[in-house]
């Protein structure tokens, strides 16, 4: 119990003093995860919607695979990205290993299936509601996708938040491809892992509370900006 109190006290002081290291680590966490989220959303939102609208032969298999990829083990993703980016790997020439870019790549791979699957679920319902009308109005496929994306934007927010949650709290992959290098690739989660293994529980917990607080702030911010729960069902 004492450890937890110490942790809270440590978190409090770290935040109040605007600890330079903490700020740097937090901003890097945000930078990596938000960039990964942005890229993942650009891929997953249209792709998930398209999957809901389009009927094709291997649709069922595609959806099953997608759902399985939601639980992709980050460590394995990290390992594969590591091998791809390492000097002997096919993308070794870019020298990306142990950079924030490598961490972003790994996180995009981890969260895209998650965001896409949630998008597909939500869009499937909306599509069954809109199906007849949009077909009757002679809409093209891209018009249908755009209409669904716009009218289902609240559900997409949930998908994006889920993706963000997974990215910001993820440690396995970014530890491997980032290397947890101080001032270069150290983020909140890798710092927590490091402090814990060093036995500095107070600092580790402090960082942990900052991490949780960050998630809360982002979630509240998006909800208040998009005014969900305020204007009825949609």
């Amino acid at each position: 119990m004492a450890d937890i109190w110490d942790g809270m006290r440590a978190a409090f002081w770290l935040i109040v003093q605007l600890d330079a290291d903490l700020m740097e680590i937090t901003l890097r966490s945000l930078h990596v995860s938000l960039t990964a989220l942005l890229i993942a959303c650009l891929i997953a939102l249209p792709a998930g919607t398209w999957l809901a609208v389009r009927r094709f032969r291997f649709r069922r298999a595609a959806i099953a695979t997608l759902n399985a990829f939601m639980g992709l083990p980050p460590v394995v993703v990290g390992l594969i990205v590591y091998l791809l980016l390492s000097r002997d790997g096919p993308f070794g020439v870019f020298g990306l290993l142990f950079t924030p870019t490598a961490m972003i790549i790994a996180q995009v791979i981890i969260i895209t299936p998650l965001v896409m699957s949630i998008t597909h679920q939500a869009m499937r319902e909306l599509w069954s509601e809109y199906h007849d009308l949009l077909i009757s109005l002679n809409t093209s496929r891209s018009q249908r996708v755009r209409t669904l994306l716009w009218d289902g934007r609240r559900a997409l927010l949930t998908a994006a938040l889920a993706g963000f949650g997974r990215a910001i709290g993820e440690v396995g992959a970014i530890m491997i491809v980032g290397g947890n290098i101080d001032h270069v690739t150290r983020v909140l989660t890798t710092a927590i892992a490091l402090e814990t293994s060093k036995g500095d529980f107070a600092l580790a917990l402090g960082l942990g509370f900052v991490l949780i607080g960050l998630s809360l702030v982002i979630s509240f911010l998006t909800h208040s900006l998009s005014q969900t729960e305020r204007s009825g069902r949609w």
Partner: protein
Amino acid sequence: MVGDLMPLDIVGLEVRRRGKRLLGPITHRFGLDGLTMVIGPNGAGKTTFLKALHGIERISAGDLRWATSPEDAKGRQAYVFQTPTMLRRSVRENLAYPLRLNGVRGGDLAKTCEAWAERINLSDALERPAPRLSGGERQKLAIARALISGPDLLFLDEPCANLDGSATADIERMLADALDQGTRIIMTSHDVGQVRRLAHDFLFLHGGQIREAGSSGQLNDPQSIELKSFLKGDILR
């Protein structure tokens, strides 16, 4: 112009699902103008028939022969569903949607939407979310949204089901106006009174087949026993 879209000849139209024949074979000619009422008991195939004509129900056999190409015909019709689908947007955006698809933008768009909102008494509700309108308002909005891009042929599936008298009267007035503008209308209805008020000609479906068809005058002198009992309000099986 309706003239280069209609008449519509349907020849041997059939709709089968899972080996069961839901509709047909139906052969019929829809004339140049006026309002054709498709009547019949529940399960007679009225909705399937309308959807097949509109091209959103797959046809198993037979032909639709428009006076123009099928692609051209497709772009000149509108359909109002039995339970109107409201886009999760404001009333204004619901009205604007078909216009936007046709590339209408800016001042013209706003003006047309406002004019139609006024016609359906929703001027004050332009910015309200459409899914939260009452049943009658929703149906009127759906009809306005169907008419706003000026289709030559309008399908309506039971537009007045579950509506009270005043909403029904409003909708019948909208349909009469559309007819005056030269829109061809094909609709279904359960309400024998409405059939007599609106129909120029009728088509009586039973068990997926046309049992009787003719001008509205013929409703006073039905030939088949089924139509007779349907008009009397008896339950048909």
